[in-house]
């Protein structure tokens, strides 16, 4: 295996990690501020992708599609928060799991009713096709590189939002003491709606960006959702820093595991067996990592007690 290939695979892992971060940051914010566990987060991912595909197909402009997709996911987030989610804040996790599980069913089947069963067409915009030549003979997909860049921008933006703005101050206050900020005269209901919409829009952004690489179809949000949960649990629920570290860790481990696990096993067993056992183990790898981390750090890497 050449050096260039190893670097390329690490970049692949980082790209997966970036995408997971977009999903996980919303999940972890919503949990940190409102104490809500939201299984339906993957539905916003799907909604973003579907709207982007539809708008791109009608206007022919991917960037417009992306913008509308992200906005639409945010708006759907607001509607869902107003109708359902805000009734769940003072409920137990059990009710939250169940209600948002119900939302998954409603969103998935609802999308079937509207779009039917065929996957939608969405492709990478012309200007980002092909690959980029980097030093040391490394070449890497422009579009994936752009996703990594976008992830870095979002991470910086979130950092500035939370540390520098009034909204961020309220979010931090909300994480520490929910009653307190209500008493301080902050409109807590609006704050919650905004935070939820922000999370939904980030998920929509992830779905729209990834939709161009993968297939836009019902159920596309579920595998990503489960991985995003692994990420926030590893990072510590409620911690944006944890979400970032967890996302990159999961992305890189999952990607490299898929490639290196079979290659390692092939040294001491027949190739076809090594292939199937290797890929069996690598598919379990991130869950094993999560269980191991939780066994030693029950609140994740950066979780508050």
């Amino acid at each position, binding site marked *: 295996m050449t050096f260039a290939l190893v670097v390329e*695979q690490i970049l692949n892992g980082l790209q997966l990690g970036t995408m997971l971060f977009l999903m996980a940051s919303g999940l972890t914010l919503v949990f940190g501020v409102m104490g809500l566990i939201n299984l339906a987060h993957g539905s916003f991912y799907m909604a973003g992708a579907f709207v982007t595909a539809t708008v791109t197909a009608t206007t022919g402009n991917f960037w417009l599609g992306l913008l509308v997709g992200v906005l639409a996911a945010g708006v759907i987030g607001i509607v869902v928060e107003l109708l359902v989610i805000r009734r769940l804040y003072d409920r137990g996790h059990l009710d939250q799991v169940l209600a948002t599980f119900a939302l998954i069913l409603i969103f998935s089947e609802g999308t079937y009713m509207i779009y039917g069963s065929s996957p939608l*067409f969405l*492709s990478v915009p012309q200007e980002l096709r*092909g690959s980029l030549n980097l030093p040391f003979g490394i070449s890497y997909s422009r579009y994936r590189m752009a996703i990594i860049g976008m992830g870095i921008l979002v991470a910086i933006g979130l950092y500035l939002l939370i540390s520098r703005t009034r909204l961020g101050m309220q979010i931090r206050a909300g994480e520490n003491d929910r009653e307190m900020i209500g008493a301080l005269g902050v409109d807590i209901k609006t704050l919650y709606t905004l935070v939820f919409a922000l999370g939904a829009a980030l998920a929509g952004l992830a779905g729209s960006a990834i939709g161009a690489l993968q297939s836009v179809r019902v159920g596309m949000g579920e595998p990503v959702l489960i991985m995003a949960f692994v990420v926030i649990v590893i990072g510590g629920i409620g911690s944006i820093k944890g979400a970032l570290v967890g996302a990159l860790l999961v992305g890189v481990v999952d990607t490299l595991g898929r490639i290196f696990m079979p290659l390692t096993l092939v040294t001491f067993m027949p190739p076809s067996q090594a292939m199937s056992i290797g890929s069996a183990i690598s598919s379990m790898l991130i869950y094993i990592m999560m269980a191991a981390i939780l066994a030693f750090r029950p609140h994740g890497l950066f979780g508050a007690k």
Partner: protein
Amino acid sequence: MKQSIKLGLGLAIAATMTVAQANEVRVGMITTLSGDGAHLGVDVRDGFMLAIEQSGNSDVNVIIRDDDQRPDLANSLSSEMVDREDVHVMTGLIWSNLAMAVIPSVTRQGIFYLSPNAGPSDLAGRMCHENYFNVAWQNDALHEAMGQYVRDQGYENPYILAPNYPAGTDALTGFKRYYDGELANETYTQLGQSDYAAEISQIRASGADSVFYFLPGGMGISFMNQYANSGADIPVFGPAFSFDEVIVGALGEAAEGVINTSQWAHDLENDTNEAFVAAFREEHGRTPTLYASQGYDTAKLLLSALEVAHPEDDPDAFREALRAADFASTRGEFRFGSNQHPIQDIYVREIVADGNGGFTNRLIGVAMEDHQDAYVGDCDL
């Protein structure tokens, strides 16, 4: 209850049946109408029903249920079909794992099963049954033909990949059964995987001269999209399952130039096929996939045997009529081997621009003539 179910399904045929008629033939269709793989079931159903409607045979009563691609649900639906609906013939299953869960017990209860899609190796070999007929193909067929084609075209170093599950390993085994040269690599991916960046990097670095993949449904769309985008230019080959008209529509130009094997093509020139494709487009406003042709052929086979005998009154005569396969297939020539699986030509198609801004499959040749599955020897029929 029964009546409301059928009305709810909007089956005009079923709804008009109020009492069982003497010649009524009850057909139970369990197929996948929801989930990732729904377009396969929808096309099988639409193809099947088109043939039934065209025949004007009002004795055939088709009861359709959705299995949601879940083996346990398929199983309970099949007991509903057998025990409550008293069906004579069953059909419709798309997936091999569902087929293995349902078919052995159904055929043992004296019911005929005509498979419009799934063809697991066990049912072609050691577990074959006189009441089981496969109208589509044994699962390995298209992969085998592609192995042959890649060999014939002089490729010497293909990179092959499939998901790590039984149909995936069967696909690669089938490919290697006829392609006996060197391999650049053999990779198993995760079932349901949606990001193939890591595998594509491996492929590009492997020095392969061709890529063969079997990734059904959404997996194939993701792979091909990302592959085309990565700037890789190694030619791609696959079975038609990865390149049916619906998938080609979702892929757009990413799929241009891909070669795939199929037992049928929408531009195959014979009278039956031309009439079928035209009628299907007329009725549903889309080009049929191979699954639609399989559903259509299955119904045609059933109708041809019903001309001879009723499955309950004279099962032996009905079975003989099925074996004779005396119907006009959309594939041109069609006959059964001794294990009641097809012996048929496997064609090669290429994905090209259709001239209206979209893309479509075009027939370019024949990969194997009179292809028969490798398991027929294990079957003692």
